[in-house]
Structure formats: C-alpha cells, structure tokens
C-alpha cells in the first residue's frame, strides 16, 4: 500500500493531489499514518507503532487503519497495483 508519489503532504496535514486538484485535511494521527505509509511501512509495523504510542487495542487500530485506507483509495491517493508514477 503506497501513497502516490506526487501527492503533496504538508506538516500541518494538508494533502494536495496535483492530478485532480483536490485537497484534504488529515488530523495528527492521520498524518502520522500517511507518513508511515509514504515510508513504505507495512500494516503490522504501523499497528505496533500506534499501539506503542497511544492507548488503544488491536481491533480498534485494525478497524481504523482499514477505514483510513478505504478513504485514501476512494480519494485516489493510493497507488493502484501496477500503476506507474507520473
């Protein structure tokens, strides 16, 4: 699961997709997850990081992670399988 390379993510959590001109805002945990995804981290590593850092449980993190990924896919921010970077 990779964030599209040309998607711009600012430190404030502002996300800009230059292909579509759309922009979004992520909250601080969303931003952390985006950065981990951008750095090529796998789900297990992301879950571990989140659980180490925040009071939560595996099921909640798993659910939130998948909801988040679904949203990123819906907004075309995730690299499709086999899709080349522009």
């Amino acid at each position, binding site marked *: 699961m990779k964030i599209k390379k040309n998607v711009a993510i600012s430190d404030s959590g502002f996300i800009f997709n230059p292909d*579509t001109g759309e922009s979004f805002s992520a909250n601080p945990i969303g931003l952390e997850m985006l950065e981990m995804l951008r750095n090529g981290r796998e789900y297990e590593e992301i879950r571990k990081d989140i659980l180490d850092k925040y009071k939560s449980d595996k099921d909640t993190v798993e659910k939130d992670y998948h909801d988040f990924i679904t949203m990123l896919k819906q907004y075309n921010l995730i690299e499709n399988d086999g899709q080349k970077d522009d």
Partner: protein
Amino acid sequence: MTDKKTIKIAVTALNAIDSPGPGVSVIRGLREAESFDVQIIGLSYESLEPGIYMHDIVDKTYQIPYPSSGTSTLFERLMYIHEKEKLDMIIPNFDAELFSFMKLAPKLDKLGIKTFLPTIKQYEEREKFNLPEFGEKYGFNVPESKAIHNIADLYSIGSTFDYPLVVKGKFYDAGIAYNIEQAKSYFNKISAKWGLPIIIQEFVHGTEFNVTGLGDGKGNTISAVPIRKQYITDKGKAWGGISVSDKEMLDLTDQFISSTKWRGGFELELMKNKEGKFFILEINPRIPAWVYLAIGAGQNIPEALVKLAMGMNPKPFSDYAVGKMFIRYSWDMIVDLEEFQQISTYGEL
C-alpha cells in the same frame, strides 16, 4: 518609458459580470506581457460592460454592432475605429462574434490589422452539433449529441438518450434535465436566448476538467494548462479553480492541436469518467474567462497569441505551476453619469 514596441490591440468581451467574458483577463495578460507594451482599445456591445469603465485596463472603448447586424456593418464600424486608432490587432473573445471576425480577417489583414483565429473549417467542425463527427474523425471520446430544431423532437430522442441528459444552447447555456418536462423547460429558456438549434447531449458522469491552450495553426502546441474548477456558480461559471498536472490531459490537448492544426486560443471542456477515460464535452474556439489562472501559472497565452499574430515566433511553453489557484471576486466601481452618458450616446469612451 521602455524601448519595447507598443502594440495597439482591440479586445472584445469586456463584460466582467457573473457570467464573465474573457476580455478583462485577456487584457491583464497583455498588460503583463514582457515582450511588448500595449495600448488597449475596448470593443463593447452594451453600455454597462464593466471593462468600459476600468480605465487602468482599457484605454478607450468603442461600441460595435451586434453580430446579427451583419459583417458589413461591423466592418464599417471597425474602419471608423481603425481610422482614429490605427489598430495593430483585434482579439475577439465571444463565441457568437467569432464567425464575423473570421470572415473579416482577410480584409482586416489587408489594412494591417492582425488577428489569430481558427479557420472557418476548424470553427465549424467543433460546433456542439458536429461533436460526434468530430470525435469520430479525430479519434476522441465524445458524448452522444444531437441537434434539434423543434420542441416536439424531445419526444423522439428518448430512443437515443436516457435521462438525465444535457440541453445546450448553440453558443452558451446548458441545463441537466432529469425528465421531459425539465428538458422542455430548458429548450424554451435557452432557445429564447440563443436561438436554434438546441443540442441534446448524453450526460457523462465524472469529474470535470478544463484545459486552455494555444495552437500555432501548424499542429504545434504553444501553450496548454489544465485546471479543475473548484467553485462553480449557479450559472455554471467558475468562481475558483486550480491548475493540475494530468499528463493524459496534456497528451489529449497535444493530440487535439496536432490533428486539427488548431489555430489560436481555445478551451477544452473535459469529463473524466470513473474508469479514468476522458470525454470532450465542448471545444470553445477562444480563450476562456479564467485564462488569468494560466497566466498566473506561468503561461501568458494572450501574449503568445499576439506574438503569433505579429510573426514574433513565440517559444512553446514547457512548464507551468501546479496547484496555482484563482479565486474570482466582484468589485463595485463608482462611475460618473457623464461616462455612462458618453458611451450610451456617442458609443465611445
């Protein structure tokens, strides 16, 4: 004072209103041109076009007759203006007037007034009612369209089109109709304003994008800037937009210019469907009102257009800033009655 050449250019479409003409944006580009200075002569149709009163934008304005008066009446008026102003170039910016200016272009050229317009063949090929043939000829995806002249034809098109469908005027205006009653209402409203035919177009679901650009008439792209409109008024006009970087759109624009050998400015209205396929919804044969975004993103299309017309060989633009936005605003000017009286009575200000 600069040692740059001063070019005297007449520009139409000074109606910077809620459905704005491109004139004021075009002039802003011309005034920011690096390769020449300009004197701007506004050409207006009505006394309340805001550009007439924007004296830092337009140096002097003359009213010109509506296209319905015929090309000879327009030519006579242009001769009068040329006698006084010694014009170097005219940039017409309205769809409805382009045909007259294209017809007059050779006569104007003989008088030393340059234009840089599409050919009549290019203009006619891309007309809304010719779009299906255009798509087939040049290999573009276009929505199914049909021109109708009679409101009764709306009953028979049901076999070709499903609702919702788009009801479009020949030059301007469009509405999405979800049933025949709505289609009839749009037919009446739009035909009363813009005449016949009315174009019925298949509704393509997706995200709308627009590209403005400039072709040199030999198949080369001088400029192309794609945008997504972010805020659209209830008249369907962009009130905010952002430049985007979709390579497919730029390739499509290159293909449009190279296959048609497009001459002049244009706007492509595109729809990207869920499968990522682009459809050409409309080809406007002139610079759009939002062109100042392209200028702000680094491609001064009006300047390059003038250079093409004047034989100054502009270099094709190779880049533009992605993520540049425009946000339109309205501004109330205070105008003395004398100015309104002057343009209304004498047709000059």
